[in-house]
Structures are given as C-alpha cells and as structure tokens.
C-alpha cells in the first residue's frame, strides 16, 4: 500500500508501462485521420475508389503534390497557400498590436468609460464574425474590400481574445514595477515599452501562434468574400475542389491539399510549442 502510494507520487513502478500503453493508444487514435489523409495523398485515384484503400503510403507522392501545388482544381494550391499566409500573418500581427495597446489602457489607467469599453471589447470575444455575416459582408462590400486582403483581415481583427489574455497577464505584473516607474517619473509609454512589452514576450509569441492558426483556419469569411478563385485561401478552397453532382472527387489531389493546408500551422505550433504552452499557462494565472 505504502509502496504503491509512493510509486504514484514519484511516478515509478509497474503502472508506468500501462501509462505509456494508454498514451500510445490515445496518440494513435487521434493521429489516425491525419495518417489516412497522408496515405491517400500518395496513392492513385483507382486505389482509393475501390475500397478498402491501402493503409500504407504509395509511390505517387510527387505526382499528387505537384498536381495540387501547380494545377489544383480551380486554382493552383500554391496561390491559395500564399493568400492564407498573408491573411494569417495580417490577423496575428494586427490583433497583437491593437490588443497590447488597449489592454495596457484598461489595466493601467482609470478613465471615463473604462468599464464600458472593457465589456464592449469583451462582448466581441463572445460574438465571432459568423453571427453578423450579412451586415459585415455589406460593410466590407461598401468599402470595396471584397476579394482583397484588407477585406480578409480587418473584420477578423475586431475580436477581443488577445486583449482579454493580455489583460489577464498585465494584472499579474507586480505593482511594484509600476510604482517604481511612477516614482522615477517615467511616462506611461516608457513603462509600456521598457517593462510591459518585454515582459509580455512569451505571451506575444504564444498569441502569435494562436492567432496565426485562427487566421489560417478561417473558413466562412473567406468563403463569402473571395468570389475570385485567385483570392481563395487554402482552407476554404479544399471544399471548392469537390465536384458538384455525382462526379467522383479527385481524392489524391484533395487529400494532398488537405495535408498542405495543415503543414504551416503544424510547423508553427510544434516549433513554438514550449513558448506557446508557457504563454498559455502564464496568461491564465
């Protein structure tokens, strides 16, 4: 009994193998859809349309990916990848800048309407673009922003996730630092640039990851405002590759495109993993 308890706290003993086995099982189940998509992107169309399809990769990798990247179905996937990249980076950088500024104002100042502004911003956190698509579409059309990067980016900056997270983080910055800055006669913006922003590095990096993925993975908005295939983003473009009616879908090319659509966000998440996870924890304290 005592040994067992000891083992649980110290994480040793027989249970460790079971723990690993459970973990591996979990990973396999969760990974299976991605593996299957990868396999489908390396085989020929006939191999897929006569089920069951193989569960190990074939030899059509280059053919399928070349076909997807440079021809695609409606537009080369390379074009859609570029559009997605511009949109994702635009949203991430734009949101981080406006959110740092507004969170700083809300946390470090008492000004008329502060609470109201906070709740107004907070409201946008809860009400994504999907709710107000028709009027937002009209606004963007009115500005002549259809089929443009501005139209893809601006309406999606108008939400408060980042402001909310920065506010949470700023609240954890010790008061002594602001006190010291004030005693030294430092102006608020000096304090912001010299202390607050550098301390927020981890959070900025973490938010960049989150927002990059948020922007990259947008679906409904690009679907509405990019009627020109040249402006399609990759995530919304995949669905457009399915034929209407009874024609058989070009599965290998579609699955290659799905894999290509995953690669940039996966690289961002996996490579910035440590920073990202630390940022998440910090922002929650």
């Amino acid at each position, binding site marked *: 009994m005592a040994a067992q308890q000891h083992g*649980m706290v110290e*994480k040793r003993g027989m249970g460790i193998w079971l723990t690993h086995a459970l973990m591996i099982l*979990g990973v396999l189940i969760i990974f299976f859809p991605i593996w299957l998509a990868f396999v489908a992107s390396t085989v020929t169309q006939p191999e897929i349309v006569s089920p069951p399809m193989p569960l190990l990769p074939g030899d059509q990798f280059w053919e399928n990916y070349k076909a997807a990247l440079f021809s695609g179905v409606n537009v080369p996937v390379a074009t859609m990848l570029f559009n997605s990249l511009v949109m994702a980076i635009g949203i991430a950088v734009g949101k981080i800048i406006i959110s740092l500024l507004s969170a700083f104002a809300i946390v470090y100042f008492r000004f008329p309407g502060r609470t109201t502004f906070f709740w107004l911003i907070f409201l946008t956190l809860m009400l994504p673009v999907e709710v107000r698509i028709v009027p937002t579409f009209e606004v963007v059309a009115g500005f002549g922003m259809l089929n443009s990067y501005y139209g893809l980016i601006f309406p999606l900056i108008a939400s408060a996730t980042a402001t909310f997270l920065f506010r949470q983080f700023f609240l954890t910055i010790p008061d002594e630092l602001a006190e010291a800055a004030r005693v030294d006669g430092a102006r608020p913006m000096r304090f912001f640039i010299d202390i607050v922003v550098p301390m927020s590095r981890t959070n900025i990096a973490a938010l960049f990851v989150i927002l990059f993925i948020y922007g990259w993975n947008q679906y409904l908005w690009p679907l509405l405002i990019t009627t020109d295939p040249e402006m399609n983003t990759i995530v919304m473009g995949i669905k457009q590759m399915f034929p209407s009616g009874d024609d058989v879908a070009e599965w290998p090319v579609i699955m290659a495109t799905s894999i290509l659509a995953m690669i940039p966000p996966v690289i961002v998440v996996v490579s910035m993993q440590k920073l990202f996870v630390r940022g998440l924890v910090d922002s929650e304290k």
Partner: protein
Amino acid sequence: MEKRVTFRGWLLPLALIAPQVIISAVFFFYPAGQAVWQSLFIPDPFGLSSQFVGLGNFEFLLSDKFYRASFVTTAIFSTLVTLCSMIPALFLAVIADRLIKGAGVYRTLLIWPYAVAPAVAGVLWLFMFNTRVGVVSWYLGQLGYDWNHVLNGTEAMGLVVVASAWGRISYNFLFFFAALQSVPRSVIEAAAIDGAHFWRRFFTIVLPLLSPTAFFLLVVNVVYAFFETFGVIHTITGGGPQQSTTILVYKVFSDGFVGQDLGSSSAQSVILLVVVGLLTVIQFKYVEKRVHY
C-alpha cells in the same frame, strides 16, 4: 482583479484603446446594429424596398418549427462537442502528467490536430466515413453495419460531433496538461504522506486547482461549438440530412446567403447575439464565485 497602482490621465488611454474600439465599431458593432435594424424589416422579393414589420420576423421565427429544431440541435451539438473534447483531454493529460520521460514527445504528437482547421478536419473525417470510398465505413460495412450519414440524421450528428471535438482534444489537453504540471508537487506529496490515495488526491486537490482551467475551457469550447464548427458542418453534411445538423450559425448562413432571406437571417443573428451575450454574463457571474482562483 484591479491594479492598485495606475497612471494618471485619460487622453492617452483613450488614444491607446482607440484602434481596437474603432475597428470593433466599424466591423463589429455597426454590423451588429445593422442586424438588429434589418431584423425589423421584410425585403420584397426583388430586394428593391423593404417593409417594416416590427417584431414580425421574431414572431415568425419562434413559431417556426425548423428554427426551434435548430435550437435543440445546437444544444445537443455543443454539449456533445464540449464533453467529447474535454473528457478525453483531461484523461490524456492526467496520464501524461504521471510520466517523467516521454511526456514531451506525446505532447508534440497530440498537439497536431489543434493546428488542423475545422474545415480540413471535416474533409478528413468525411474521407474516412465517405459512403463510397471511406475506410471506416467500409470496415463497418464488413461488420454488418450500414453507415450512411448522408441519409441518417443521427449518424450525421455523430460524425460532425466527432470531427468537431477531435481538434479540440489537443487544445484542451495542452491546457489541462500545463495546469497539472503547475500543481505544486509538495502539496501532492504532503497529501500522499497523510495517506490520501490517487483518486482522493485527484478530486480533493488536483481538480479544484484545475477548476479555473476547466472553466476557461468550458467557455471557449461552448463558443467554439457554437461558431467555429461551421467549417465542419459545411464540409461534411451541409446542414443535412433534413436539417438534422443545422446549428444556429449554419442557419444564419443558409437563410441569409443561400436563401437570401435577409430579414429572417438578421433576426436570427440578433437572437444569437442575445443568447451568447447572456450565456457569457451568466457563466462569469455564476462560476466565478465557485471557481478557485
């Protein structure tokens, strides 16, 4: 949750907050206001003029059985997505937390689906369960089960729930795992010395310490299920069969853009605005008191 030390002045903070407020006003509050305004009118079939009907659109919606069905569908869908994404995530995080070696490797692998767009996840799951070429549906067929989410509403719902929850397991796992890692070892060890076994420690110490994380995740998962799953539904079922997977957001889209029924679509937007606004306030007021921070 307030700072004791603040800076003086009100012009600077207003200038700092201005970009966000302006963008929110132009692309959020103005369109939301427009939605409210348009919800009071019925445009004529040619879109040339519109007639003021007051709350007519709302009255029609609330008596419309399809709209009420969509409410129920949304409730079922978001509950299932939240449960199916949080419980496996907590389970995996508790397991991973017990490992000293290898936890990082598992985390790196488990993180992948988080990066996969809901619409892409939809395509992946559609591919597995496709009635003509799907691997899983084929093997189910071999076992004597005839899978057809194109015709069967329950199967369609099951498929969009799983496809929606799948990517969220990663997200929730990351938060739970990070929270578990930050539980002080000394507290756990002290409890163990006092004779508390694993589950006792888990429910009396670990879970309360996890509650802010769980609450945060509850909110974001419900919001996710409400809004961000559009891509999953659009790619897999298109709201069908017989509207069995038409959640509220999907209905705003299909009535507004496909059906061109602006009045009804706007009224639906307004109802969604109110529902989600209330949900948020209630959740925060109610749960903040109970959650250990």
